[in-house]
Each structure stands twice: as C-alpha cells, then as structure tokens.
C-alpha cells in the first residue's frame, strides 16, 4: 500500500492520452497498454497500478483514497465537486462548458423567468444559475443527445460541453453563454499528497516539465 501508486484513468481517449503523457515523462506504463478487459492493471516492477474507471467515478476513487492520482476532465470535476488537489492542467480534451439554445434567445436569456434547463450536468447548471447568476431554474437531467431538448420543447436551453460546435449548428442551436473552459486535469488525493509525497511530487514535476516542452 505504501509503495504502490494507484492511478485512476477515465476509460477511453483520455486514458490513452494520459498514458502517452506519462510515458513521455519517463514512467513505464506497459501494464496499462495491454489490450484486456481487466479493470486493474498492475506493474509490479515500477509499483504503478492503473484503474480503468468510468470518467464520472474517477473523482470518487481519488477522494476516497482508492486511487492516489486521477486523470479526468474538468467537466467531471465541476459536476462531482470533490475534495481533491487539482494539480495540473494537462491541456488535452479541451472544450468549453456552455449554455446553448436557439439563436433567437441570444441576449434575451435573462427574460425567461423560469428557465427549464436540459443537461447531463445538473450540478454545474445549478451552480451557474443559482449561485453565480442567482436565478431559480428547473433542471431536467438527461443522459445524452441533450441538443434534442430545446428542439422538441422539453427545455428552453441546455448546459453541455461544446467542442467544435458542429452538433449545435446542425441542430440550429448556438452558444449563448460560456460557463467555463474545460480540459483534462491531474488530481491527487489529499492524504496521498502528504503520505506519498516522495513519489508523487517527482511525478507531478516530470509531467509539468513534459508539458512545458510540449
């Protein structure tokens, strides 16, 4: 327990990019690259252990100390609101969290008294409208194809991540307000940062150096 570093990765593209970055930073990640259905991949020589988790679960694993380090999108961090150290902006997976809706709502968003908001990110939507803008809103939690909601009258606007904006455009929607820029972050458990400082600090530094070299 003392000598292994457990890293939780968000299954999919983010995990691949994280592994690539760690390798460039001089960490052997062969264990994590094996094509397998195993969810825990361990390299006994380097003492690294990788957990392949659903992105939304990564902050939970790290907060509870089941993993020391996690790589996860800022969108998930904002939504989950966990007590973590958020040490590095890894740069990849860049996009924005936005309020989107029909173009004719541009500049008139404040005029809708009781907004109905369709989103996969209820917490982010609540924080933005209730705390930042001090508006009461009705949140409708959806699990995908969020763009549908304003089109068929289920919601007035949506809160979602926007990468290229193509999906929005093809469905006649546009970005009304930007909530926050999003990218992948490296997060660290607050206890691990203290107890395993000898192995975590060098890792953070190596990744930072690698990012600076670009």
């Amino acid at each position, binding site marked *: *327990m*003392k000598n292994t570093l457990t890293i939780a990765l968000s299954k999919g593209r983010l995990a691949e990019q994280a592994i690539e970055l760690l390798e460039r930073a001089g960490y052997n990640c062969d264990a994590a690259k094996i094509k397998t259905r195993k969810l825990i991949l361990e390299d006994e020589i380097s003492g690294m252990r990788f957990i392949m988790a659903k992105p939304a679960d990564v902050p939970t694993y790290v*907060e*509870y*100390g*089941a993993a020391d380090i996690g790589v996860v999108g800022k969108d998930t961090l904002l939504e989950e609101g966990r007590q*973590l*150290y*958020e*040490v*590095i*902006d890894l740069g990849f997976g860049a996009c924005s969290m936005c309020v989107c809706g029909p173009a004719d709502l541009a500049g008139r968003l404040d005029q809708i008294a009781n907004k109905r908001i369709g989103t996969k990110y209820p917490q982010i939507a609540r924080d933005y409208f209730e705390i930042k803008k001090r508006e009461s809103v009705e949140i409708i939690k959806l699990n995908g194809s969020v763009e549908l909601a304003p089109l068929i009258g289920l919601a007035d606007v949506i809160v979602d991540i926007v990468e290229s904006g193509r999906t929005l455009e093809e469905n006649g929607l546009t970005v009304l307000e930007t909530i926050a820029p999003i990218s992948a*972050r490296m997060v*660290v*458990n*607050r*206890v691990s*940062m*203290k*107890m395993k*400082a000898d192995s*975590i*600090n060098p890792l*953070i530094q190596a990744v930072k150096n690698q990012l600076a070299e670009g």
Partner: protein
Amino acid sequence: MGQWQFHTPEGVMDYLPEECSLKRRLENKLRSVFNGRGYDEIETPGIEFYDVYAGSEEFTPQETLFKFFDHKGRILCLRYDGTVPAARIAATICRDVKPPLRFSYLGNMYRFNEAGGGRQREFTQGGLELMGLDTPEADAEMIAAAIESARELGIEDLQVSVGQVSFFKGLIEKWSLDDAAACQLQQMIDTRETVALDELVRQFGLSDTDQKILELMMNNDGSTTVIDSLLAIVDYEPCSDALNNLKSVLSVLEDYELMSYISIDLGMLQSINYYTGIIFKGFTYGLGFPLFSGGRYNGAVAAFGRDLSATGFSIGINFVMTALRRQGLIEQRKQDIVRLLYPDNLRKAAYTAADRWRRDGFRIVCEKISSENNIFPKNEGIVSDTSAESLESAFAGIENFESVIVIMEKQDKIRIYCKEC
C-alpha cells in the same frame, strides 16, 4: 410491515462483537490518554437546538445537520461535533469557572454527509478543548495530544500537516480583496489549482512577489524552511506575526520531540472563518481522509457571549478502525468465555462456583448439560477442585483457546476441557 424493516439507514452501522470489542478497546485507550493529560470528560446531549449550531454556519453547513422539530415547533438537531456544545457550556453553565478550561469528550456525532470510504453519518469522535489559553504552548499541546492519541490507538505511520490561517487572512487584508475574490483565491490555494494562478494574479493586479508568496503557500514539500522564505518577502505585520506564531509552536513541538511527524502546509484553508490561527490535520495510509484535525478557533466561545480563546482537536474512532484494518494492524480478539456445564442436581453448586470465578475476572456462561452441548473437545480433561486457582492453572500455558468447557462433576470437583486453536 414496511419494506425497510430489514435495513438500517444509510451511513449508520451495527457493530458485531468482534468490531464492537475493538471499538471499546480503542475508546478506552483514548479516554486514558485524555485523562492522563488532565482533561475532564463532559457529556453533552445528543440533541441540541439548531440555534446552537446556526452561528457557525461555515463549519456546520445547515444541510449537513440532522434536523427535526420539538413539540413547540422549535428546530432541533443531532449533535454535529464536540466543540460547539463545549463552547456553549464554557460560556453558560461554566461561565464563572476560572480559565483555562480543559474538557474532553467521546461520543457519537451525526452529519448528513455522503457516506463511504470509512465515512459514516453516525460516527464516534473523541477530542479535547482547551479554552482560555492563547499561547503557542497551548496550540502545541493540542498537536502533541493528537499525535499521542493516534499512536496510542496503534497508528504509527503518521504525518501531521500544520498551517496558520491568519497568514492568508493577512494577505487578503493587505491586497484589499473583496469576499468573492478572497473566496476564489482560497479555493485555488486549497485545491492546489496552480493552473489558475497566473490568471488570478493578473485579475487581482498582484505583483511578482505576491505571486511568489502564493506559489510558496501551494508548494507541497512540507519543509519548515518555507516559513523563513515567506518571512523574507512578506512585509505586512499580521502576515509575519502569523508566521512567527507558527515558528513558536514548532519550537514547542521540538521540545516534545515530535518534529519527525510534522510538515508545514500554509495552503490548508478549509473553514477559514471558523479557524483563527494554527490549524492541523493528521494523515495515515489506507484512509482517504484526515485521521484527526484541529486548530485554534478563538471565536467559538465568543459566539456564545464569553470572550475566551479556544483550541482543540478531534479524532475519529471509525477512521482509526478503517486505517488499522487496511494497514493489517488489528489484533484478533482473544476468546475468553468459559462455559460451565452442570447436571440437573448440581445447578446450585454451579451457580456458586460461577459467581466466585466471575469475581476473579473470568467470563462464565452457565448451561445445563443437554444432548446439544455435551459434545466435548477431544483434549484430555483435568480433574480439579472448584477454586479459581485451579481454573486458572488449567489454561495458564495456553495463548489462544477455541473453547473452555468446565463440567461440574461433584459439589467440589470439576473437569476442565480446554481446546487450543
């Protein structure tokens, strides 16, 4: 019959004999540490008026209190911590007691938090409160007591981070930042979000030196040299006062010979409106949360109308149990129950013998011999008289036994069967 008949609510648990006996052993050890340091135990009600906690909203957010109403419609809540009730007592019932006041507590607390990873909604916490002594020695006394408690409970691999929130408060004052800006900065430092540093420095119009200060606060190496590095570049009295106070506390901890456990973390900024000076947290392996935490909260008693400084700490028994379990440090409980079996005609003699043995500290269960319980272990029995000495000598050399069965043969004769593990 409702569908929840077979369940317990989320975040609470049953303690079965093995766990419960471990918990009691830990609680007893903790009590003896507190007692040895001259702290008197108090017990406060499990139910308080909500108003008791409403004054410390930042430390006890209303959504984390278990609330309900009394018959007059007043809001009640379950005890959230040990400090606020102790502060209430110090300012009310004990208002005329000459300071310093030293209180200890050990009891169940209730928080409507997310449960998991060792965190419960009903959990047992012990702690100390030292009121009316605003000195570096008092702060160090709390840290030393917290470390002793953790070690006494079996946690040796321990790291204690010490910070000083007045340093950050001084910076806010010096840079004349409004609440929103202060909150942004606090969050950035507390989450070590170095990513946002450049942006905030620009936004608030801070200098290069200011940026250097923030970087030093967020550095993770824990070394005490950070204090001198900061003293060299900070030119604002409240900030340097805070750093010098931290240094004084460390010099006391040197005399306690505890510096090997200590690391400095000036970026610990949780509940900063509640804490007013030194703040500390203890960490160990296998537990995602701090094992203990504490610090100085000079406003806690003042909130109840008595001007009395205060410092303290609390340690979570459930956290200790989780950490011990994950570190493989739990000793197996010794089996120590003796079963005394008797035939019908010797019942009275059996009860008399059992009573005598119990007074000598044995744990005795008395049962009538029946077809269900007369399956004896194979070990050769030892026939003996019914004195406590002979019972003791029967299994004196045995470290662990699976069972001891005593059969009453005659008024003053017993046969002892002892089965080793």
